[in-house]
């Protein structure tokens, strides 16, 4: 099967998943036995005609399937309005998603920085003190309650050493936004891509050479990133160690040894072979960071997607729930697809 067929098949099998996920979250929210419109306007009594109008606008008088179809259709055309803030949800997601991307990038950076070297050292010095240390580190990382770790990192790096920002999120300057839009309008397809990447302030700052944004982003995001890295770095190190040991024990390496390759070359071969499972785990980890870092976003006060979805759910804000679910399913699918693609690139034996 060629890559094209694979792509099409992947798309066909995932479409039901997206619709299913949307339907499940919608129905969960729908069966909550309270009046969503009341939850939106708050406890203050609003005049009944406005309530009626809101009810009509969001089709709460229609049966659930019509209401669902209405929400999805509005979402896909980009005209779904958040009733609480009064702006389109597409714009809100466009504002918050880049922040989550930044958090995920910093988290991934520290995870890789901690996990891969530790894993390689642990595999090279198997059963030594450092191997034991990596094991304990991984176990501690998966045992400590995330919020407790976050509190103590804040205590050390914000209260005692003022090494981090904790409020606000750096955004691009208006000039930079204009530059990016200019690029999008002048260069046909590549320009659009650059513009999309530039929406993440970290990359946007690099593209328009506005390094104050980059510096601010780094000082805002490095601490949550380090926290996420400390939590999952040990786990990644264990995976790296185990898959390296498996690779070193494989017949390919035995053959390489028999041919008399230097140990340097042997290690290079083993590393390359051990990489495929690591990429899978890292890819799924990244997808997890893009969707599920609610606790980190709460404690570090980062207005990202997790917090957005959380607020949407607790306030029964249907438009936000639908938009967030849609976004999460897309992230999951894209990440799974990318992992498969990278897998095929690294390991030529994998063919679809």
């Amino acid at each position, binding site marked *: 099967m060629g890559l094209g067929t694979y792509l099409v098949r992947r798309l066909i099998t995932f479409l039901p998943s997206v619709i299913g*996920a949307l339907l499940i979250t919608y129905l969960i929210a729908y069966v909550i036995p309270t009046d969503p419109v009341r939850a939106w306007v708050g406890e203050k009594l609003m005049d009944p005609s406005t309530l009626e109008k809101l009810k009509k606008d969001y089709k709460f008088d229609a049966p659930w399937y019509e209401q669902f179809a209405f929400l999805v259709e509005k979402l896909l055309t980009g005209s779904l309005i958040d009733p609480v803030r009064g702006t389109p949800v597409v714009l809100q997601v466009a504002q918050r998603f880049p922040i989550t991307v930044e958090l995920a990038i910093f988290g991934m950076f520290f995870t890789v920085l901690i996990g891969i070297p530790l894993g390689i050292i642990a595999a090279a010095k198997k059963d030594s003190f450092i191997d034991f240390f990596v094991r304990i580190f991984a176990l501690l990382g998966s045992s400590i309650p995330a*919020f407790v770790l976050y509190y103590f990192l804040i205590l050390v790096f914000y209260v005692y050493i003022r090494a981090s920002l904790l409020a606000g999120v750096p955004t691009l300057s208006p000039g930079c936004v204009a530059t990016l839009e200019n690029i999008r309008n002048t260069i046909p397809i590549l320009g659009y891509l650059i513009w999309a990447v530039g929406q993440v302030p970290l990359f946007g700052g690099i593209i328009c050479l506005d390094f104050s944004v980059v510096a601010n982003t780094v000082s805002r995001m490095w601490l949550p990133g380090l926290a996420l890295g400390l939590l999952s770095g040990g786990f990644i190190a264990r995976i790296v160690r185990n898959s390296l040991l498996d690779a070193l024990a494989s017949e390919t390496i035995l053959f390489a040894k028999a041919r008399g390759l230097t140990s340097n070359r042997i290690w290079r071969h083993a590393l390359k072979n051990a990489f495929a499972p690591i990429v899978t785990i890292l890819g799924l980890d990244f997808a997890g960071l893009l969707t599920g870092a609610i606790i980190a976003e709460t404690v570090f006060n980062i207005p990202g997607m997790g917090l957005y979805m959380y607020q949407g759910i607790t306030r029964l804000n249907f438009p936000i729930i639908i938009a967030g679910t849609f976004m999460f399913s897309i992230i999951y699918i894209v990440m799974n697809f990318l992992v498969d693609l990278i897998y095929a690139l690294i390991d030529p034996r994998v063919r679809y």
Partner: protein
Amino acid sequence: MNIFYRLGSWIVDKYAELRDKLEPGWLAKNKSKLVETKLSIYVFTSSKIGLTGLILVMVTLFLAIFGPFIAWEPYNVYPILLRPDLAGKLPHPPCWSNCEGLPWAGTDHYGRDILSLVIRGFRISLVMSIIIVFTSAIIGILLGLLSGYSGGIVDEVIMRFTDMMLAFPGLILAIAFSLTLRLSLRDFMMSNPSFTQIVASIFALDPTDAPNLANLLSVFLALILVWWPPYARVVRGSVLTIKEQGFIEAAKALGLSTRKILFRHLLPNIMSPLLVMITFDFATATLSSAALSFLGLGPQPPVPDLGLIISQAGQYFPERSWWIVVEAGTALLLISLGWNLVGDALRDVFDPKTRRSIELKSKIVVRE
């Protein structure tokens, strides 16, 4: 041979003796099983990680069972309201060492003794995690067995549904579920006082806390609902690899019922990776339920839930509440570290590679 191995081996021998007395010939028939069990005990007890974990688990289980009786202060009192003479003198209600007449291990902003609260918290944490994991493991195992063994349209339907659940971030789905379930559970508990009584005694809480109990139960059910899909996935995968093997064919040829094949022949053969998974999940479930309470979805004060205690302390962190975060955080860390250590050692126990290497070194004997 260390003392822990001798203890375990002694228990196995005693058990075998008893079984042999009840049904003569049992020992001879099950000798290889006994050797296998002893080998597992040997591997487990010779790892420091496993023993440390076992001790931690025992300590936390002890506190979970007896903690509510040890705790010296009821959780639903507000000492600060009873001591108006203190109110003016105190720096701020959560206090550590500079408040007269209040406990040495610090208090929260109601003036309650934190240590006593945390000791009560073990019960809620462990009951939650253990029942969540067991229930969802059972659901997942049943669905996985059904799906893997029957194949065809049943398999397709179950697995598509499982994939859908897996495609969505678990914590967010759990938040949605717990909000959905909360109100109906509250109504249900209000109209069924005897049920409320039972739930309250399981969590060692006061039955008058019915709304809080409903919140606890909603988190609990929500986590079960999002926890089973990985089990169904793993079980189905192992069933698929095992069901084509000779002994299953033989069992089918002998005309055994499907139920017997599933539970007597398939399940025991896929149990060891599941046991490791369940042990690790006790830790994850502890942390997840604490995370949900931390986000404010679980019980409300004055329930001594560890996640809730920490989230309340967060408002004053660090100057006025670091001891609360330390004490409750350590409790959570101990619970999940214990399970994780045991899980890590169990993985070695069930790993054929370590088994083979140890089998050669040790001489395991079973008394005839």
